């Protein structure tokens, strides 16, 4: 059946499809009812209803872990929802879970953050890719490049996107890559619809703006409007509230797996939306946790408090007396001791970021993906090129653009990279070889390499750091994710760093190991006066482990939270609100 697409596609005029089909206009494009999903004991989605009308842009917003991604993955057929849910498109009920590969044929298409383009191929080749892959036996039929070119140019013209067909995708600006991905997705959808006879087309854009410079985001909006004018509907999943306010007709807010609000365009201001997302202005949030309640206006004042550079000493003292339930709510060392200073760090997505830490202090960097926080570890460590900035550590001032990883190691910096398998551990090396990597030079004396000594160090290490199985001669690849992460920590902590930079250190790590990792880092910070920069988008983790959290948005420091006011919700609120204020 798929071989026929090509022929029909050439003669039909896609412009006719869409909203002006008579008698259908009342049927919503997509209706999902009572969608639920649990992972282990976590309720990821709890009876969520979602309706998308024809020609409507619906935004889906919520914190990390609110259930946004789970909902998207249920629509794409990746997750199987619990029984009792319903999904219909164009008034036609669909089986759940959505059968794999069927989403496209029923009028759903997805563009994810990574866009799924092939960077080495040209715009034209990328546009045609799915028809190449999809055609099955037709893959043997010749490619008529002239015809394909004409067709591709026509498609791009239809969506009012101008791109050079022969440009390599890798060389395009990120925004143009995003536009190409959206056009391709929209066009593929049309092709399927013409064979299936369906009329709805719903495009799910999952965080499409995070890696785009703000001035480029409007190019995307033009394209989304064109899509809607052609009769499509859009589900826009985003953290970027400024973008949501501008493009969405209706905004659906998820929190803790429930739909908590649905607001129409122009019906809300930013603070309302942040409160809805975070939920701390309502008592609902507090009851979902067993810990103590928070003052209702807490989150509202966070934005203001955060932009004040210095939190009062008295406040901090008060926090200590009240002995807050959170483990790390104890105050960090006083500000006067912040001897490790990062000034004017620029590079990647960062513009002039400055912050300071005291020895023994654990400072979280919180920011949305694309804020630049995720670039800090690699720039600070000299692994990616910075354009400006200095690092003052141990009385020495280092120029970050001139820093190399080996100088960073010599300055007693340590890096726990997010991609542990590529950058953290030699998976084919044994546990002991990985663990002693930074200290092995000390065991070479008078021309003799004391391998037995290193193995002893490692044997002690696996016990100290709770690595299981406690064996030093197995390959690192044989360990579970959590134990690999402990091994990586052991490797760096054995070298006695003054500053540990951790990026998503508990990613892909089970709950037990996560607690071990917190404990290991805290112990090292206390015992060895090691400062820690902890970068993650898991704000609950920051609340639990950090003394202080620095908010990063649009590449700059935009606030600071500590003590009582440093909660998961307030961090979320600060992050969302700061983004909006700058934008």
């Amino acid at each position, binding site marked *: 059946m798929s071989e026929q697409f090509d022929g029909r596609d050439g003669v039909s005029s896609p412009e006719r499809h869409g909203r002006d089909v008579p008698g259908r206009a009342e049927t919503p494009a997509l209706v999902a009812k009572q969608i639920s999903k649990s992972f282990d004991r976590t309720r990821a989605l709890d009876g969520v209803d979602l309706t998308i009308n024809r020609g409507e842009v619906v935004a889906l917003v919520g914190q990390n872990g609110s259930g946004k991604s789970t909902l998207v993955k249920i629509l794409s057929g990746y997750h199987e929802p619990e029984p009792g849910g319903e999904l219909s498109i164009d008034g036609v009920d669909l089986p759940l879970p959505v059968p794999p590969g069927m989403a496209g044929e029923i009028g759903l298409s997805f563009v994810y953050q*990574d866009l799924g383009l092939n960077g080495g191929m040209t715009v034209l080749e990328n546009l045609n890719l799915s028809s190449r892959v999809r055609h099955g036996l037709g893959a043997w039929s010749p490619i008529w490049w002239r015809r394909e070119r004409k067709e591709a140019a026509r498609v791009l013209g239809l969506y009012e996107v101008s791109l050079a067909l022969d440009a390599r995708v890798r060389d395009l600006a990120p925004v143009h890559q995003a536009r190409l991905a959206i056009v391709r997705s929209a066009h593929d959808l049309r092709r399927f619809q013409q064979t299936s006879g369906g009329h709805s087309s719903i495009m799910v854009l999952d965080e499409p703006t995070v890696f785009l410079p703000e001035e480029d985001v409007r190019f995307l909006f033009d394209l989304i409007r064109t899509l809607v004018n052609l009769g499509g509907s859009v589900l826009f999943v985003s953290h970027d509230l400024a973008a949501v306010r501008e493009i969405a007709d209706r905004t659906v807010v998820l929190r803790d797996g429930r739909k908590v609000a649905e607001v129409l365009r122009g019906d809300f201001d930013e603070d309302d939306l942040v409160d809805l997302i975070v939920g701390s202005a309502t008592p609902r949030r507090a009851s979902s946790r067993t810990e103590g309640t928070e003052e209702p206006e807490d989150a509202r004042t966070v934005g203001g408090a955060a932009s004040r550079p210095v939190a009062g000493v008295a406040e901090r003292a008060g926090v200590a007396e009240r002995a807050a339930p959170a483990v790390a709510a104890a105050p960090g060392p006083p500000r006067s001791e912040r001897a490790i200073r990062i000034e004017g760090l620029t590079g990647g997505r960062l513009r002039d970021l400055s912050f300071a830490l005291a020895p023994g202090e654990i400072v979280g960097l919180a920011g949305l993906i694309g804020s630049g926080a995720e670039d800090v570890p690699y720039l600070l460590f000299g692994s990616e090129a910075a354009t400006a900035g200095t690092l003052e550590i141990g009385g020495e001032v280092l120029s970050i653009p001139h820093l190399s990883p080996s100088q960073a190691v010599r300055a007693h910096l340590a890096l726990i990279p997010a991609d542990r398998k590529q950058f953290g551990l030699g998976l084919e090396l044994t546990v002991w070889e990985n663990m002693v990597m930074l200290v092995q030079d000390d065991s070479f004396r008078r021309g003799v390499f004391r391998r037995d000594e290193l193995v002893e160090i490692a044997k002690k290490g696996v016990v100290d750091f709770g690595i299981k199985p406690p064996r030093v001669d197995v390959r690192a690849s044989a360990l579970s994710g959590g134990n690999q992460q402990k091994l990586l920590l052991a490797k760096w902590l054995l070298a006695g760093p003054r500053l540990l930079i951790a990026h998503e250190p508990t990613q892909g790590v089970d709950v037990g190991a996560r607690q071990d990792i917190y404990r290991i880092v805290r112990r090292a910070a206390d015992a060895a006066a090691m400062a820690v920069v902890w970068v993650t988008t898991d704000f609950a983790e920051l609340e639990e482990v950090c003394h202080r959290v620095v908010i990063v948005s649009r590449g700059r420091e935009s606030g600071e939270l500590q003590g009582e006011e440093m909660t998961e919700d307030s961090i979320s609120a600060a992050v969302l609100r700061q983004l909006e204020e700058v934008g």
Partner: protein
Amino acid sequence: MATPLVREAGAAPGAPEHGEQELGEKASRSRARISHGLDRFALIIAFIAIVVAFSASVPSTFDTVANLSNILGSQAVLFILTIAVLLPTIMGDFVDLSLGASLGLSAMTIAVLNVNHSVPIVYACLAGVGAAIVVGLVNTLFVVYYDNNPFIITLGTMTIVEGVTFIISTNATVGVVSTGLSNWVYTNTFLSIPLEFYYALAIFVAVWYVLSFTPVGQKALVIGQARDVARLSGFHVNRQRAWAFVIGAAIAGFAGIAYAGTYGSVAPTAGSAYILPAYAAVFLGATAIRPGRMNALGSLIAVYFLATGTAGLELLGAQAYIQQIFYGAALVVAVAFPTVTRKRIFKRRKTPILPRPTAAGS
């Protein structure tokens, strides 16, 4: 520049996969342990097997001092070149094809200077090694400094160096080099084995010591196995890779001296015959002692396994070209053997670990 290190947003709790993962790990661990012992000594067992087989079939010629001397001495050039090849390979720069050409260039330089220009043999030898080092430096410049693919660059430099060798030889075999050299390389013996074997052994011991008993060697291992990890652990990755290329080239230059001394005269194509056997030995060596890792001791065993095999076959009456077939077959069998046996042994256990798609009927 988009960083490759960022993680995806909102990763869903991946708890359901955990149990399966654990299972898979256990299986792979025990699998690793069983096959470890088997892999590790397979080459040595094969070595002993062919020695026993040849001793039994041609005892009158195989079990002789002359044959031992032949095996150890005649392959010294290959042995030295194998050590040269080992160095860049161990650092993860999988091929330096130009090392064979460097051997040829070194030998030809010695012959031309000594024979045509009457340069004293010692200076000629120094010049030969120097010429090889220059090739190594060029490789370093393009592969390490400008960060290009070593296969492509050394394919190019190999071709250039072979061309240069033809030019300086004026396209003719050059000989006979000073007998002083051949005396000290081939003619003089110690325990009836030509001296060049001991030179090769000395180079081997030096490289083996550095690779196996110093932090430099341990770092080389990390660089070869996980270059990004080495870089982010503060190792001087490029510096060490550069040294590997240059020292490798210098050792290839020494192989050139051994070649000139062994054969007396040097043909313009001298080097090209050695490079592939040397790689065969290195990869074959990687299946022994420390399976999966290039290692010096394994390479030593592999070189003499191959030499013994060909010597035995020749004593059995095989033609000289059987050497090529034996080298190639040994390499394929040695590299494929562990994977083939592992698949067969563990096929049944592997299947249930594979993730099953949870699809409803269409």
